[in-house]
């Protein structure tokens, strides 16, 4: 579940950054169209990818339930962090992405 959480969270952060308003708030600049597209595609890919560890760990029926729960939780977490601790929200995503290979190695 940890790996799925890390991937979901990073995916949501990427999708969030692909929106002009949040990009401006978090990075103080407007994203270029290429970057916007890259973030959007990357975000969706990460979200799709996160299904795999969840299902791999717990089978389809339970894995999908786990995945949905993690998906909702990571979204809630990000939305709650954004207004209060925007830097932390970004740092968490970075750390999460860096840690995900380790988590993958440890759990899969």
């Amino acid at each position, binding site marked *: *579940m940890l790996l799925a959480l890390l991937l979901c969270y990073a995916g*949501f952060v990427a*999708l*969030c950054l692909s*929106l002009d*308003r*949040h990009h401006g708030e978090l990075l103080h600049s407007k994203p270029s169209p290429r970057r916007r597209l890259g973030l959007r595609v990357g975000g969706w890919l990460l979200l799709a990818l996160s299904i795999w560890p969840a299902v791999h760990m717990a089978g389809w*029926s*339970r894995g999908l*339930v*786990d995945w*949905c*729960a*993690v*998906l*909702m*939780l990571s*979204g*809630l977490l*990000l*939305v*709650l962090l*954004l*207004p*209060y601790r925007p830097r932390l929200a970004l740092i968490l995503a970075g750390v999460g992405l860096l840690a995900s290979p380790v988590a993958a190695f440890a759990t899969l």
Partner: protein
Amino acid sequence: MKEGFRQAMAWLHTWAGLIFGWLLFAIFLTGTLSYFKGEITHWMQPEVPAHAVDDARSVAVAQRYLEQHAPTAARWFIGLPDSRDPGLSVMWQDKIDPGRRGNFIEKMLDPVSGEQLQARETMGGEFFYRFHFQLQMPHPWGRWLSTIAAMVMFVALITGIITHKKIFKDFFTFRPRKGQRSWLDGHNAVGVLVLPFHLMITYSSLVIFMTMVMPASIIASYDGDTRAFFNELFPATDNAPALGQPGKLLPLAPLVEQARAQWDGGHVGRLAVNNPGDVNASVNVSRAGSDRVVHDFGSTVSFNGNTGQLLRVSAEQSLPMAIGGSFYGLHMGHFAGPLLRWLYFICGLAGTAMIGTGLVIWLGKRQLKHAKTGVMPFELRLVEVLNLASMSGLLIAIAVFFWANRLLPATFAERSDWEVQSFFIAWGLTLLHAMLRRCRRAWIEQLGLGAVLFMAVPLLNALTTSEHLGVSLAKGDWAMAGFDLTCLGSGLFLAWAAWKMQHRSAVQPRAERARPLTLKGEVH
């Protein structure tokens, strides 16, 4: 035309949400608590000690007790303990009377020593579970009302999605400290982010009661005999009748192991032994609901109690049953481990918060118009009072329920009923209080009272039992410790909310004046 449709949907969302919001808030909150039904029961019966779970030992202990105390019973039931609720329950029925259900004798045993426990009488977590779909009403009415509320919730969800103009653009938007705007942001954020849960929980609740709500197809196919439908759906285990010759029942623990082998190591929920003292004794071992997401209503393995011969393994579920079972399983979350259970709990709280914020928005929007004159029309005052009693009042009532559990003497007759009574008395008093006090004062006072009651729960537990946090944490009794800590956390949250209310009321007038103009176009 498009705008007209959206406005119509917004109207429906607003009014369906208001009329059923109070009830739905209570249903969601008590339903959310039901995810920790076992843990709540454990806390409310501190006399039942927590032990490491060992099915073989529990079964042996139960069998020994029943052989001593009910050798001639017609049927035994053994409910095995799990890590969430450590009580080993044994029940027996002296004579099977087909016309009557019940007449069981139930005892609670210590799963290690086998001694009968004198646990205080309480409904425990079962109260919240029952309340969330029966609403403490006589039999069919509560179920009907809660099902209608679920239907309205479903309508409110769909219309809410249609009304919400910028789901993707505002997906990550939450702007705190902006008054009415923040409430709407919060309402949208929890609504959209936790939408899969909301849709699942609401739709599955309708599926669970589908035979009650839409019986037409059953009535048509079975000539109005709904019982025949259920008999066919859940065939009674046709165990052989007693022969009247005394027999010797085998030890049950090896049979349990055999049953588990049939389920690839699945867990056992309970055992039923028919005619335990007879040659024709039979043992039905039922699988625990916590094994799989898809709930199976009758997964059992039957043995002959004297020879140990395997009699029957229940068939695989049919596809429609599996679909129904998966909605049931998803709604109940029996399969969830500790982590997923907490996520369920958080999702439930998010749903409760969505309903609560919706009610606050309805009132806040209309109150702005009357802010200048300072005179509130009757209907707004009514909504305000009901908001107060249904939200902060319910929280106080829940806390009082827990307090009553510890303060009513353990030997007091009908104490279980009195716990429930005190819940409703407290709820009624908060309604009275809401009527008598001015709005903001009432919020601060009720939230403050709730905070004190919840924060003091661990203290109360320490004073009245020997299972305080120091003991339960040291023992690793996470159900007990988790309950205390969650109450403490809830209390702190309520205290923060009360403080926020108090703080805001001081700076309110200036901030309020600047807002109404910008808001008009945005609020749906």
